[in-house]
């Protein structure tokens, strides 16, 4: 902002300096012109006067000269002087100016507002200076007028520039300062804040809008990161609990070698499960949900992913029951291929399926898979508690939990996470729900097309 002000002031200064020098140049050249023009006119009159005064006759070589307009305060004079330049006879000449007169030729000079034109004449061994003096009306009146006019214009121009720059400051710099202050208030702890777009007009409105949209993206990725941590601890806890539980139980008393072996096998299974999850979560953290991270994408079979996801859900929750409808599978298995990351897609589907089971009294989820012309459709349905209609628009917000979920444990991260993953795969996830009747999650994914 400081720099901006500096630039503005520099511009104003340049403008003023330019205008002043422009005015000065005009004044200078017009004055010059006025002087030389006036001297020419004086010279004409002087020559005429010389003829009259010296010869005592009127030589009318040019009639127009006789009728020359009489200049303001026009006065003719003739000075006779000796060879020592001493004045012998003076008619009408201010002797104080004798010094300025060229005694051997012509002179033009100016004393105050009076202009003089003199010439040396030699007549019958006598030396004369004949001259005419007059006021330069053009110089004293018109030029002064022009000078005043230019000064006034200059002052007005300056005022104009000042007013304009103040206006600019108010209408442009002030809102920018406001914008900056608003932006300064937004930090990691209040990323939900947005700029008040309606306060700004024109380009600044667009700027505020762009900034807000950037904030949306920043907030989403920020939330994704936060989600990752919550999700990680949540997902990793389950197998860890079972590892501790199994180890605890087998150490509680002496057991046979076979029992130890069994326990160890269970621990290995749980640990492998844990490993898979950390890998998936790390992958999620590394890729984020942004679209440009598709380098690791590979064509994967969605039917296999769904089956693997269901296996995972069942391994964690023994009571959960999943009914899978694969009756709509296409004849061509190529139509079941999706370009993506299997662990992430599996994570998304297992999250939704376990939600469906969790919020149903019979812990049952219905999963159906079908294909259409350029895509794959997955429907995950339950007959559970449903989502209140007015809360449907918040379900993708991280940590949001519907008002009817108090009796269910959860973190409000499964669905937003799943949606991010589906979005990352250029897919769509939508939810329809009826309170008390159940919820349907619809996932559409584009079919893999070999390049």
């Amino acid at each position, binding site marked *: 902002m400081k720099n901006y002000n500096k630039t503005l002031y520099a511009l104003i200064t340049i403008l003023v300096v330019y205008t002043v020098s422009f005015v000065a140049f005009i004044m200078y050249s017009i004055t010059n012109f006025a002087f030389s023009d006036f001297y020419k006119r004086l010279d004409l009159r002087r020559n005429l006067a010389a003829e009259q005064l010296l010869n005592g006759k009127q030589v009318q070589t040019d009639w127009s000269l006789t009728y020359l307009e009489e200049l303001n305060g026009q006065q003719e004079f003739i000075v006779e002087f000796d060879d020592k330049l001493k004045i012998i006879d003076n008619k009408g000449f201010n002797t104080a100016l004798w010094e300025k007169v060229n005694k051997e030729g012509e002179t033009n000079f100016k004393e105050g507002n009076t202009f003089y034109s003199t010439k040396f004449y030699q007549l019958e061994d006598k030396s004369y200076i004949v001259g005419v003096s007059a006021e330069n009306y053009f110089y004293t009146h018109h030029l002064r007028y022009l000078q005043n006019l230019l000064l006034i214009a200059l002052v007005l121009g300056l005022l104009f520039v000042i007013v304009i720059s103040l206006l600019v400051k108010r209408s442009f710099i002030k809102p920018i300062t406001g914008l900056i202050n608003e932006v300064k208030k937004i930090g990691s702890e209040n990323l939900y804040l947005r700029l008040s777009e309606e306060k700004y007009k024109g380009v600044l409105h667009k700027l505020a809008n762009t900034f807000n949209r950037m904030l949306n993206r920043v907030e989403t990725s920020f939330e994704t990161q936060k989600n990752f941590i919550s999700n990680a601890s949540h997902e990793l806890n389950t197998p860890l609990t079972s590892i501790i539980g199994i180890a605890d139980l087998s150490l509680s008393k002496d057991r046979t070698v076979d029992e130890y072996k069994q326990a160890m096998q269970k621990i290995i299974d749980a640990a492998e499960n844990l490993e898979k999850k950390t890998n998936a979560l790390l992958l999620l953290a590394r890729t984020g949900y942004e679209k440009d991270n598709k380098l690791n994408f590979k064509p994967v*079979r969605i039917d296999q992913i769904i089956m693997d996801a269901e296996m995972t859900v069942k391994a964690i929750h023994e009571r959960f029951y999943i009914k899978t409808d*694969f009756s709509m599978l296409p004849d061509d298995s190529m139509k079941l291929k999706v370009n993506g990351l299997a662990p992430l897609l599996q994570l998304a589907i297992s999250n939704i399926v376990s939600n469906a089971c969790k919020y149903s009294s019979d812990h049952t989820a219905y999963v159906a898979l079908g294909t259409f012309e350029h895509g794959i459709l997955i429907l995950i349905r339950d007959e559970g508690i449903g989502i209140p209609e007015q809360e449907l628009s918040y379900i993708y917000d991280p940590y949001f939990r519907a008002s009817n979920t108090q009796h269910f444990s959860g973190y409000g991260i499964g669905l937003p996470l799943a949606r991010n993953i589906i979005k990352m795969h250029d897919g769509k996830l939508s939810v329809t729900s009826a309170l008390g009747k159940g919820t349907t999650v619809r996932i559409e994914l584009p079919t893999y097309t070999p390049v």
Partner: protein
Amino acid sequence: MAYANGQELNLTATEYRLLMLFVQSPQKVFQRSELLDKIWGISFDIGSNVVDVYVNYLRKKIEKVTPIKAIHTVIGMGYVLKIED
């Protein structure tokens, strides 16, 4: 990984398990319910038509790389793996 005629078949886990089942007991006729039970297990409620779908996927993948028909349908019974001359 499974190969036929020296070419990779590129099977999914389910298709691979199905193939292994056939390979371990050639000439044996598998009923649909048996395949369903062995591949998906009783905990998987998936509907019996998937057996046909997946046998079909497996068959197509094999036939893509070799001219030999390996998996045959036994009408009214099920499926069998045998190589006929």
